[in-house]
């Protein structure tokens, strides 16, 4: 697994805690912080959702999340941190976090947007939705693609 030496893993069991990702003080040369968090919704295609179980293929998922941080830093000149939950999450809980710190807001927003899109297309993670009627289904998803795409 490609986890940094002292940093927490990017793939974590259970809901993410946004505050943890924002506790670090802003680097003095960064004037902009853009954050994206994805949470479990209570509806999907008008079907009542009670929770989502996130599955991952961990070795590649960890590596891809790390690559997204590096590629985003390279493309936008920002500091990026990303993390994704695995396991059972309830409605309202946070499944994915992207934090971008940059000199100015343009790059911060662009990097944040690019990173969440890259996570959705390039990281081997799957949503298994749990419905109010007791059923559970995997969403259909999109074929896995490399990190280094527009």
């Amino acid at each position, binding site marked *: *697994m*490609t986890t940094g030496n002292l940093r927490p893993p990017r793939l974590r069991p259970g809901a993410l805690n946004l505050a943890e990702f924002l506790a670090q003080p802003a680097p003095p040369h960064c004037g902009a912080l853009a954050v994206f968090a*994805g949470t479990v919704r209570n509806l999907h295609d008008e079907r009542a959702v009670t929770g989502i179980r*996130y*599955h*991952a*293929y961990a*070795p*590649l998922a*960890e*590596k891809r999340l790390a690559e997204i941080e590096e590629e985003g830093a390279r493309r936008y000149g920002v500091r990026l941190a990303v993390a*994704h939950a695995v396991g059972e999450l309830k409605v309202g809980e946070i*499944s*994915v976090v992207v934090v971008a710190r940059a000199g100015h807001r343009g790059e911060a927003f662009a990097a944040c947007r690019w990173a*969440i899109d890259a*996570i*959705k*297309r*390039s*990281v*081997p*993670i*799957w*949503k*298994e939705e749990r419905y109010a009627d007791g059923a559970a289904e*995997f*969403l*259909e*998803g*999109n*074929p*896995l693609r*490399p990190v280094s795409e527009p």
Partner: protein
Amino acid sequence: MQHNGSMKVHVECCGAAARWCGAEELSLDLADDATVETLLERLSALHPELARRRDRLAVAAGETVVPRDHKLTANERLALIPPVSGG
């Protein structure tokens, strides 16, 4: 164990692939010149739900996505990566 020109490979069925294949993990005997393509051929013949998505699957070995012509090795561990839906 390799004998009679065959070898064993191990497959982790990720996400919905576990349902399509009826198991989280599979071990298969394949000819010792088998590729990823050979593996997908075998599994698709058995599992129609997998066959339907065959062109949309990726296959990984450890941290690496491997192409269809990747030559498998004895006891190699592979992962079937169905279309992804994280976020």
